[in-house]
């Protein structure tokens, strides 16, 4: 028996003892009808081959280990960025349990959202009563300032009409007539979570600007020189939003953040649970119509939203999750151009520090090959930074990327000699990536937590940048935007490179001559 009350061992150690390993081996041989070892080895090796890669890439119907989620997840994200807002997802209740768990596993924070809990009868008769009752209950219990409605695929398949349903619910007195209930149809079988973010944010902005569902006059734009800022669906939103506000304050920019999740996903442990905290104030969301321009940090998260804003006469500028020196330069210069505010010397100094850090460390990154996957904007931003560092991106993959994304990535790669040998994979998944890593190995992989399966199989060290990150804590609290954010990403990459160096040079009297104290 290896268990011991003095030094309790759990799953990490417990099952490695002989009593368990023998038991499990016996289970396998006697009862599992296992694959013969030589056959297992043969097939394992075959999955690493070029032949397998070709079969794998010939897939037309099956998706394996995708790096994307569904629309309503993004809608919940967008809704939570507004003051006192309760996301209300119309459809089956299990979906909402999943979104709440998913976000809580990433942010290590509570995530509040409700469902209209539709079941079989609603599938037959429609979910109107569920929405009417659900709005009344949500309003009574959780006292929100706004309820932002989106849909699951169930409600979409049966064709529930949110506009009509919400009117109906207001007539039935579920919420007051002038209560803010923006909505968006967010079918899970179209696009991905970034599409849902876009649709929900557009729904909220449209609500406030276009007469609040007939309860107020449509706002006429009177330009006031302010700047709107949209972050998009971003796993680093807590750190990033605070960094952007700091930069804007340093520049003296007057701004409105449209969708600010940085407080609701970072509340203190002080004895009080804050279901709502921070977020864009609703009057600010309305007044954002008067801004001179809107900046989106994530083009592919905000395509429809920016169209709406542009149609109201604002200049719109979209970035692709800019990371590093040049991306941040372009961002700040646009902010400066749009607002007429100069970039202060203190920010130029921050820039210089990031350049200094890159100069100090880039030798360890230069020429290293990287595979990279994630959302369309994030992969563009990271690829840009890798090129600045002299790294060689080799495989760039985005399950929810399309043609336009491919063109953008290819143009970026063409702009640098370091991008020469890179291929771009839109609409592919992490099982495709597995074949790529076996047949065209790279030095490091950048991706979210699910990349650890690729790390295990292909032994490519994983640098965790993306969403979701379930198995490392608190990185979402640190920005990846701004020069300070660039420094964080640089350090994240370097830490893995150095750890990997140490881990591969510690074989005593074999290779530990390279186990250097100074690197």
């Amino acid at each position: 028996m290896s268990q011991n009350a003095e030094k309790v061992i759990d799953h990490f150690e417990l099952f490695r003892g002989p009593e368990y390993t023998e038991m499990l081996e016996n289970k396998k041989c006697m009862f599992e009808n296992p694959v013969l070892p030589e056959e297992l080895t043969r097939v394992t090796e075959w999955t690493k081959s070029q032949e397998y890669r070709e079969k794998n890439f010939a897939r037309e119907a099956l998706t394996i280990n995708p790096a994307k989620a569904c629309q309503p997840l993004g809608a919940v994200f967008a809704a939570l960025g507004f003051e006192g807002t309760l996301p209300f997802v119309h459809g089956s209740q299990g979906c909402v349990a999943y979104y709440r768990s998913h976000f809580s596993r990433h942010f290590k924070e509570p995530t509040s959202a409700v469902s209209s809990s539709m079941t079989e009868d609603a599938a037959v008769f429609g979910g109107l009563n569920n929405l009417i009752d659900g709005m009344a209950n949500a309003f009574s219990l959780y006292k929100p300032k706004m309820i932002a409605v989106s849909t699951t695929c169930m409600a979409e398949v049966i064709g529930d009409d949110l506009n009509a349903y919400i009117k109906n619910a207001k007539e039935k007195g579920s919420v007051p007539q002038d209560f803010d209930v923006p909505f968006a149809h967010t079918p899970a079988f179209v696009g991905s979570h970034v599409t849902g973010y876009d649709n929900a944010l557009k729904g909220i902005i449209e609500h406030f600007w276009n007469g609040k569902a007939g309860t107020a006059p449509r706002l006429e734009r009177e330009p006031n020189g302010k700047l709107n800022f949209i972050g998009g669906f971003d796993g680093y939103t807590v750190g990033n939003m605070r960094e952007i506000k700091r930069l804007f304050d340093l520049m003296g920019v007057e701004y409105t953040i449209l969708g600010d999740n940085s407080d609701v996903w970072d509340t203190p442990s002080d004895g009080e649970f804050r279901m709502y905290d921070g977020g864009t104030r609703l009057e600010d969301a309305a007044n954002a119509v008067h801004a001179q321009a809107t900046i989106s940090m994530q083009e592919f998260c905000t395509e429809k939203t920016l169209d709406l804003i542009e149609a109201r006469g604002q200049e719109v500028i979209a970035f692709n999750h800019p990371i590093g020196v040049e991306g941040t330069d372009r961002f700040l210069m646009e902010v400066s151009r749009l607002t007429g505010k100069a970039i202060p010397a203190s920010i130029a100094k921050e820039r210089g520090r990031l350049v200094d850090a890159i100069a100090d460390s880039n030798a360890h990154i230069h020429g290293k090959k990287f595979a990279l996957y994630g959302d369309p904007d994030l992969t563009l931003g990271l690829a840009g930074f890798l090129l600045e560092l002299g790294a060689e991106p080799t495989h760039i993959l985005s399950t929810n990327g399309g043609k336009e994304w491919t063109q953008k990535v290819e143009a970026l790669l063409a702009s640098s000699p370091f991008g020469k040998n890179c291929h771009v994979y839109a609409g592919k998944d992490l099982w495709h990536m597995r074949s790529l890593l076996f047949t065209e190995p790279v030095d490091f992989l950048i991706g979210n937590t699910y990349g650890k399966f690729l790390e295990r199989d292909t032994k490519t060290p994983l640098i965790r940048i993306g969403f979701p990150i379930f198995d490392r804590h608190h990185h979402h609290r640190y920005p990846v935007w701004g020069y300070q954010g660039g420094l964080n990403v640089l350090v994240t990459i370097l830490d893995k490179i150095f750890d990997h160096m140490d881990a591969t040079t510690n074989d005593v009297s074999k290779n530990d001559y390279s186990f250097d104290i100074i690197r």
Partner: protein
Amino acid sequence: MSENVTVEEIRERNEQLIGEVLEAYPEKFAKRRAKHLASFDEAKGECGVKSNIKSIPGVMTIRGCAYAGSKGVVWGPIKDMVHISHGPVGCGQYSWAARRNYYIGTTGVDSFVTMQFTSDFQEKDIVFGGDKKLSKIIDEIEELFPLNKGISIQSECPIGLIGDDIEAVSKAKGKEYGKTIVPVRCEGFRGVSQSLGHHIANDSIRDWVLDKLGDKPARFESTPYDVAIIGDYNIGGDAWSSRILLEEMGLRVIAQWSGDGTIAELEATPKAKLNILHCYRSMSYISRHMEEKFGIPWVEYNFFGPTKTAESLREIAGHFDDTIKEGAERVIAKYQALTDATIAKYRPRLAGKKVMLFVGGLRPRHVIGAYEDLGMEVVGTGYEFGHNDDYQRTTHSIKDGTLIYDDVTSFEFEKFVEKIQPDLVGSGIKEKYIFQKMGVPFRQMHSWDYSGPYHGYDGFAIFARDMDMAINAPVWRMTKTPW
């Protein structure tokens, strides 16, 4: 409760508390929720709540759906089959590798548990139907994963709504490849919670695995001591720390349902002399079926905490001859020193601490004994998706006056905890951070908070350690500013 509070006072407090939370609801729904909240009445032997009823809309129920019950709980852990999340991408994504169903195998080659296979439905699949795509998916699985031993098709909401015939596809492809292909109608809108998904999944094993056995020869010689573990999902290795005890007492475990399980084990189960059932809620259906069809008796057991574990070992042994009965005594004796040392170390740190639980399956009642072994007291408990028979079984484990909350809403749960101020809350990831922010120690009692196993004697030591580290962590002293 502390010794100077009477049961009457507790009951009164509970009633007041229930009244307070109900006041917040619109009248119609206050009436509906009232049926789910009560104090346990020992004299009547009733928990006094209704259960397995639709959640009311808009309230942040903690429940999931039928898909979660089938794919996430029952089918997902069968390691040598590929489980397709059939429909849009989300369901499979959010449940991907999240349940910690441990297994031994070469993932992607002969085992597939921590992979996400999805048909990633697009608009055209909704409009034109997904059956052709499903056929092609099965072909592609056969091509890329030739060592799979079968496939299950886990339906997401749209499948049942667009009228796809996944049964026909399964039959045709099963015949073509000579493999078990199981269509599961676990669309998320069916039923009121995960629970119907368990039932549907059980029935699909009955219809598409057990009923199709024919005269398939057994892979081993039977012995009089063959048993099957039913309803253990091997979370953090729970089934392994249970199996070892059964084997040490002389039994032979021929199948695990479904943690670290294989289709061969499912198929072998009709050879068992006794089915031993841990999670009654999710696998009583198949146990009853095997009793009726194959005459296999089944017995419920509880491997949380040494008291219940010893009781269960004796109960299981009671179905066998003296060899096994002696074996059970031998096992209990073997682990006595570990148990004593664990209790000696942790009980002084935990005795008298109050716990509130809200979990699924069997845990709202099954873990109570383990807490009591440490001198702790469960003062409130409830089931996410329990039925009346679960609450009936719970009456044997709880004290008079225990607060009972069925399908609790997050609003109610927060208010209850705020008022009762337990020393520990045990529930899920969606609840964890809420209570920690309130300054209340918390352990996830679905995933064991990434620890485990908690079953059996080895597991109890870990359970005790974890409860101690939750309650006695220095962090809780610091939640208030000192100025």
